[in-house]
């Protein structure tokens, strides 16, 4: 068999394997529920994507038909940022199975590379990004049908660039976060990056005070700069062609292709290392002589039993050794920094909404902190994998195990909230006492509700996850759907409470409402916790089958 035929046979076999796995999954009730959830989640994303698609179509049509194609970057940059940032911000929604399992087979490197890219296409961010680009293609083609082949070529190249870049970011982040030394370097770089953000705000602020010609010059520089970056190049390739500047348009596409290739080379470096069987474990260089270690006594939590303290310690150690998870958990503070990037003058039309309404910063940061925690909370046993057997074999109730895990979740949430409060106080001034208390009251309602739902879904719909990989996780669609629904309810209730308070011009009303709701959610949490043992025992076979499989 020739190598091309062999590769095609392998790729077909993998596609058939995934199809067969999908069909076999439908044999169980849980599999059917997963399918239903997948359909609903896809529908939710599709509705959002269709909105963006219609907007992109309309806006692109307007720009091209009005001869304003040079403004196309306004459409392409948001798509670029969404495509690259969403998977990092919301890893719970990424569904990207680990292709590393396939390496045991005589797979050629090119097949492995292609499979990684193909798996990347199934990511919601990629699907929605493609939908947005398709909207631009339609809008452009409606306005000027002759542009269709060229726009198709440009947008396909841009889509490929985004796909390759997303995989490159994941692959390199995973590499840098895998080992203590590189993790520390990443940590320092991240802090420097954050400090640089501190400088951008004042610089932009000063930009508002500088005379108009200088501001125009600055804008011109930014415009020129973006024109040599991927989204700008793609926009230019189309815009120049609409103005009959074919050579310039072709050059832009050429440079976009060069950037795509360069990014592909970076991805190739990583994937080739993986393909060769790279081991990123900490055990790469064992010490020549055994290090004398003192007795490592476990942590003590005075108010909690030994098993709860042991589970808490284990959870914290797990998280501390998971770079990807740590990065996800610090996202709330990072997002505040991003918002701080915008000018803070409330009278300026371009200023971001947190600068215009800084009183919302703390509630939003708290809500986002809760949201990123759901990634961990709704699949508590995912990282334990086969270790979950230990819980069932040990003389400890699942209630105690859940308390230990929830204690970790609550500590992370608290740490995030405190950090967010401090960051907000530093960026925009301390949040008002009434806002702070209302937000904490909202958390008293939201956290127990999420914890209760998370504990149930962790048992009813577990998925094994590898804490050391980034974005290559197979998530449970049932969990995604339930988590999405619960967050919508919580955000809806929170917004309604704040609206009522605003209506009466008294924020304490919101606090009161949240405390009343907490009076329902806390007993609900206790109720679920009280029944968790029975549920875990009843569901142990599913739990063990899902988490202990090789």
């Amino acid at each position, binding site marked *: 068999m020739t190598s091309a035929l062999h590769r095609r046979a392998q790729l077909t076999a993998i596609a058939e394997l995934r199809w067969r796995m999908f069909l076999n999954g439908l044999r169980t009730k849980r599999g059917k529920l997963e399918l239903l959830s997948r359909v609903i989640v896809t529908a939710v994303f599709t509705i959002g994507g269709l909105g963006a698609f219609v907007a992109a179509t309309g806006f692109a049509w307007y720009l091209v038909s009005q001869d304003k194609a040079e403004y196309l970057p306004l459409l392409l940059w948001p798509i670029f940022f969404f495509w690259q940032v969403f998977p990092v911000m919301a890893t719970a929604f990424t569904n990207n199975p680990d292709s590393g399992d396939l390496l045991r087979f005589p797979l050629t490197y090119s097949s492995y590379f292609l499979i990684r890219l193909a798996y990347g296409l199934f990511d919601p961010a990629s699907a929605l990004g493609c939908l947005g680009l398709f909207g631009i293609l339609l809008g452009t083609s409606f306005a000027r049908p002759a542009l269709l082949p060229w726009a198709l070529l440009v947008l396909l190249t841009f889509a490929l660039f985004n796909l390759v870049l997303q995989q490159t970011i994941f692959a390199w982040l995973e590499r840098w976060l895998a080992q203590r030394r590189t993790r520390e370097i990443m940590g320092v770089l991240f802090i420097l990056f954050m400090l640089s953000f501190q400088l951008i705000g004042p610089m932009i602020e000063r930009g508002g005070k500088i005379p108009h010609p200088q501001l125009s010059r600055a804008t011109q520089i930014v415009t020129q700069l973006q024109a040599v970056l991927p989204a700008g190049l793609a926009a230019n390739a189309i815009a120049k062609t609409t103005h009959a500047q074919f050579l310039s348009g072709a050059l832009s596409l050429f440079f976009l292709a060069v950037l795509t290739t360069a990014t592909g080379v970076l991805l190739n470096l990583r994937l080739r290392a993986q393909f060769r069987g790279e081991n990123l474990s900490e055990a790469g260089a064992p010490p020549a002589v055994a290090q004398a270690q003192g007795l490592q006594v476990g942590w003590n939590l005075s108010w909690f039993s030994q*098993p709860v303290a042991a589970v808490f310690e284990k959870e914290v150690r797990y998280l501390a050794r998971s770079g990807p998870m740590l990065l996800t958990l610090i996202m709330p503070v990072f997002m505040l920094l991003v918002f701080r990037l915008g000018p803070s003058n409330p009278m300026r039309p371009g200023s971001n909404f947190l600068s215009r309404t800084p009183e919302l910063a703390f509630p939003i940061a708290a809500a986002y902190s809760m949201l990123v925690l759901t990634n961990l909370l709704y699949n508590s046993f995912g990282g334990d994998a086969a270790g979950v057997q230990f819980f069932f074999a040990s003389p400890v109730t699942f209630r105690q195990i859940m308390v230990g895990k929830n204690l970790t979740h609550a500590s992370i949430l608290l740490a995030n909230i405190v950090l967010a409060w401090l960051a907000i106080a530093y960026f925009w001034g301390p949040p008002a006492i009434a806002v702070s208390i209302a937000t904490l009251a909202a958390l008293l309602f939201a956290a127990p509700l999420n914890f209760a739902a998370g504990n149930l879904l962790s048992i009813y719909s577990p998925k094994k996850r590898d804490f050391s990989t980034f974005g290559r996780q197979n998530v449970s669609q049932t969990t995604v759907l339930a988590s999405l629904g619960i967050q919508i309810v919580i955000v809806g209730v929170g917004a309604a409470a704040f609206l009522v308070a605003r209506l009466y011009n008294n924020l304490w009303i919101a606090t009161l409402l949240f405390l009343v709701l907490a009076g329902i959610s806390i007993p609900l949490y206790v109720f679920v916790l009280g029944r968790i043992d029975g549920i875990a025992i009843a569901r142990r076979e599913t739990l063990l089958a899902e988490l202990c499989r090789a």
Partner: protein
Amino acid sequence: MDAAPTISTEGLSRRFGELVAVDGVNLRVAPGQFFGFLGPNGAGKSTTIKMLTGLLAPSSGRIEILGLDLSTDPVNVKRQIGVVPEGMALFGRLTGAEFLSFAGRMYGLDRTTAAKRAAELLDFMQLADQPKKLVTDYSHGMQKKLALAAAVIHGPKVLFLDEPFEGVDAIAAGTLKSMLQGMIARGATIFLTSHVLEIVERLCSHVAIIHQGRLVAQGSLEELRAGVAADAPAGSGDGAAASGEKLTLEQLFLRIVGGTRRTEQELSWLE
């Protein structure tokens, strides 16, 4: 007869849909026995051990460990037993010392005792030379030793081991065997499944054989030999049993489960 059994089951059964994986098993394991539980692949060994350790619910039947009913008093039972299940039940992103200390505390030891025993066990199992190594980076044999260490850290009265010697080198196997024999000498009861019949023959005083979900033999090796000799048809011509020669466990096993070896079938495409 003798003292109350440490492990006893009555009519233990487990169905998976139409399949009856374990069918009415009645086991008796006396205190201090080193008990080998054997059977061909898919016979129901792992299913039985999972039910005995509370990892799987029986469809019917009753399990008593140390006189306690597993279904009504699981926590008290688990407090007195140690388990090395099929998947080893390790937490990969802890170091060996952290995992053992964690295991000890989950079994009710105080922090200091758990840490001291963890250090002793790591030393005994020759796992102490790379203290910062994560369990996920251990070799298979090292993981087996660690899983066994975690199962014994609280000094259990009964130990359940599912294939403890699988993938373990001769040196590590020697360490494990001496530890298990030491536990038996101190009065513990050990229940193990293994495909390595030589090891079972050397270690175990009593054996049970399960085949297609049913218990087909149970007793000491001598009792099993006697049973096979009695069942051997007169003039069968098959050496050992008739001539009074001592059958090995492998021969006993093959006789009882009726195994045949496929020697006549050839896979011609295998070079």
